[in-house]
């Protein structure tokens, strides 16, 4: 990747957005043991480049659908940080009013229509949003984020078939972090996912290094353009690695289901550190800007946590609220 092909503003934005997501997750992780965030967390530490690289090619009104591991997608798409943290604290001010928790984030003002914790469950819904775009003749696209666990599900095949059939403006982001809880993708799938064999005119497929934000951004741009030109869906496999455990805070190294060297090797492929090195080598980021960035992010995070902690909890009577709408 030649950094000269991109504007300095974009290059810095990509770094800032990844760093922000990382710092938010680390902060959640550092406070999780206090048991004040009483909701299961699924961190995407080490996978930030995918959410950021893809969402950098989207407009505010483009849709995304996402999964249980959704903090990164939500923030990259522009979801409100305070509402996210308040949701983790199950507060009335949370994005889902304390009714959803960590796995059910939403911010419709930025096209995030809600994340499902049923693995693969968001795939057809994101596809259906693409269908609504087509039926209404709108100028927007729909991005579906899902992992390798969801790639085991039949609903992926069904959804992609429909997206191809109707030539929908949908981009399928296969975030392959190689693990579903503790089972490796090789225990669940015989080889490469079949959608790379789809004829390119029906659906263009890509394989990228999911830890390289510019690579992700580059193919996402192609896929989004194809969707905007009404040429049909795309499929992007972003290979990455889940460095943390399936759920909760911290490493799960002690479980021993994967080699330590493998975890270390992938930690050294950190999408943020490696990209930072590139930016430094090219004189795009200096220490002063970095410090400023860190300070801005820390301030925002502290404010968001304070907001959440000080927010009211839902009332007992709210338990029946929102069952149906008028």
């Amino acid at each position, binding site marked *: 990747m030649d950094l000269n092909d991109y504007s300095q503003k974009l290059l810095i934005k990509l770094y800032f957005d990844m760093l922000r997501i990382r710092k938010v997750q680390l902060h959640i992780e550092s406070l999780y043991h206090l048991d004040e965030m009483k909701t299961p967390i699924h961190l995407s530490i080490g996978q930030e480049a995918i959410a950021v690289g893809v969402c950098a090619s989207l407009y505010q009104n483009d849709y995304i659908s996402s999964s249980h591991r959704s903090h990164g997608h939500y923030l990259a798409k522009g979801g409100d940080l305070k509402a996210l943290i308040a949701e983790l604290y199950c507060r009335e001010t949370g994005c889902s009013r304390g*009714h959803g928790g960590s796995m059910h984030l939403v911010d419709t003002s930025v096209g995030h229509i809600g994340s499902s914790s049923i693995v693969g469950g968001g795939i*057809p819904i994101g596809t259906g*949003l693409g*269908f609504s775009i087509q039926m209404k003749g709108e100028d927007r696209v729909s991005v579906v984020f899902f992992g390798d666990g969801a790639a085991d599900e039949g609903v992926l095949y069904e959804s992609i078939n429909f997206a191809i059939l109707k030539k929908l403006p949908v981009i399928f982001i296969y975030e392959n972090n190689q693990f579903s809880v503790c089972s490796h993708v090789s225990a669940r799938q015989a080889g490469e996912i079949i959608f790379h064999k789809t004829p390119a005119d029906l659906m263009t497929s890509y394989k990228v290094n999911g830890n390289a934000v510019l690579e992700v951004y580059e193919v996402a741009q192609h896929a989004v353009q194809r969707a905007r030109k009404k040429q049909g869906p795309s499929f992007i496999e972003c290979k990455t690695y889940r460095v943390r455990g399936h759920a909760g805070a911290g490493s799960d190294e002690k479980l021993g289901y994967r080699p330590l060297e493998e975890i270390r090797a992938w930690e050294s492929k950190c999408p943020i550190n490696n990209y930072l090195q590139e930016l430094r080598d090219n004189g795009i980021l200096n220490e002063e800007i970095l410090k400023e960035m860190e300070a801005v992010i820390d301030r925002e995070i502290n404010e968001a946590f304070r907001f959440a902690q000080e927010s009211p909890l839902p009332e007992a009577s709210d338990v029946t609220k*929102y069952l149906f709408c008028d």
Partner: protein
Amino acid sequence: MNEPDYHLESDQNVRRIAYHEAIREALDQALEVDPHVFIMGQGVDDPGAMFGTTLNLHKKYGNQRVFDTPLSENALTGIAIGAAIGGMRPVYFHNRPDFLLLTMDQLVNHASKWHYMFGGAVNVPLVVWACIGRGWGAAAQHSQALQGLFMHVPGLKLLMPSTCYDAKGLMLSAIADNNPVLIMEHRNNFRHIGFVPEAPYRVPIGKGIIRRSGKDITIIAVSYMVTEAFSAAEALAEDGIDAEVVDLRTLRPLDEEIILSSVAKTGRVIVADTGWKTAGITAEIAALISEKGFRFLKAPIIRIACPDVPTPAGYTLEEAFYPGKSDIEEAALKLLEQK
């Protein structure tokens, strides 16, 4: 055949049309007034046209708005949910509820949860329609009456019309509703011809109706069992027994008021459903009455439902499997013996 004359008080100049025509007219009128309404499902544009309910609508509104789908029931339900979130109003047809079992993830885990789970941030105005089969040896996988399963799910409205008038009016209400609505039809209702006004109208969701007023006994019924209950009530009248027939029309949200006020009047209750007995509609209604109307009861409630076995194919077995008018009559006589 003409459906029972429930509407003797209504304007006799209203035309009679067939059950499928009533539903088709509702769909036609909804498509006409709202460009966001669309109809999908395997076979909605074929000559069978979902028992005639969607006949030729694709010719009138185009294949963009009335279209055949891949079978993929689960994904297509999710796609309909996504389209609904995106501002459309999908109506998704299945010719049998048995196929709804393939959609359970999207219908139960997603459609029914989306508004609640996101604190009211997102609506899913979705209609799903399926028609219970019966007879012709349809057997265990083409005749299941699964309303009990779906009534269990909070966040999903569940409608079971029994008349041509309601089939149209409830369809129009379902399409106008901003929540997911499941309409469970019954194949036997399609034999009916009934009074249906031509202009669009809505039958309120969540409201039952008294089909026959009576003072001795209450028969609470749903869907096709309303017809059987009404015939039983007419026969009982010849024996001097005055039965009230309550047609629930909506199972969720349930019209508790109409149930309890009828029970308060008669004190004797039969609950009749087209589905299984255990943990089904009759169980729920009986439990409701024992919780909130126990003081009115003069005798134990009798439930009329299918036995807890899969539907058999052979016609002699089918006859043994499906309860009907005579079972309701017998139950009524039994209840009235218990003075």
